[in-house]
């Protein structure tokens, strides 16, 4: 009678201790994962707020059927040329040539640099929309 009370109490306390340990590590891991995701979202929001572009010229060459668009990165974030999307009359364009401040083959579009896009499209589109990586976009009538 004497030892069984303290023995079973000890057993239950050990079980509670182990249970608390498992629960705490799961809760801490879960909270850290969600916290990381929230920080990532805050970073992306800041990047989007700092991004801005402006379409400066749009020209269509009727003879050769291509559209020339120049866009300036007027924000303060570095953009990726590969993440830029070009829509002409709501039609997604691929395989167009790009140069940044005259340099071809670069993927960096830094603040205050001009991106020149040369798209083969026929017939002449009426509108063009340029979308950057963070989602900030600009439209222009051709």
């Amino acid at each position, binding site marked *: 009678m004497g030892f069984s009370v303290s023995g079973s109490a000890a057993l239950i306390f050990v*079980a509670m201790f182990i249970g608390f340990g498992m629960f705490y590590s799961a809760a801490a891991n879960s909270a850290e994962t*969600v916290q990381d995701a929230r920080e990532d*979202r805050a970073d*992306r929001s800041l990047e989007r707020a700092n991004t801005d572009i402006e379409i400066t010229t749009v020209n269509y060459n009727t003879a050769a059927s291509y559209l020339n668009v120049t866009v300036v990165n007027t924000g303060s974030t570095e953009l990726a040329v590969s993440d830029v*999307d070009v*829509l002409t009359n709501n039609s*997604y364009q691929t395989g167009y040539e790009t140069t940044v401040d005259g340099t071809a083959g670069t993927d960096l579009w830094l603040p205050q640099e001009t991106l020149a896009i040369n798209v083969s499209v026929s017939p002449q589109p009426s509108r063009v929309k340029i979308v950057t990586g963070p*989602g900030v976009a600009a439209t222009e009538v051709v």
Partner: protein
Amino acid sequence: MASVSASHLILFIASMMVAASVAGVFTNSIGQLSGALSEQGLDVSSDVRTDVEIISDSGSDAIYTDGTITLYVKNTGSERLAADPGQMDIFVDGQFATDYTVTRVDGSGAWRPGSVVRIDITQSLNSGDHRVQLIVNDDKEVFKFRL
């Protein structure tokens, strides 16, 4: 007085067994609760990381042609999504749309951050104002246009 110590022993064993089974059930339940909590954390994290934007030009008149609405959606978050109709829910003017296809336009494979998919919704519309609501992992995007 062997009978006294024998009954003491039996009672002792019985109480230890009861305590052990209580402890076992307790630890088991806590273990299941911890597992569920971890999964919920992963789900919430995935929802927070998901962000998509509809990049179609709403002022253009090439959104609706011959009974098909064409929308381009860009993954602007940091979560890798699937280019699959089951990944999203679409409502056209408040009605749940089931007849649509999702295809990647700039390559193939998963809908990773920075890539764009094209959604073709088969739905006939009359002239006037319309709205399409897209929901991906709790991220709601609304696209309004006029025919």
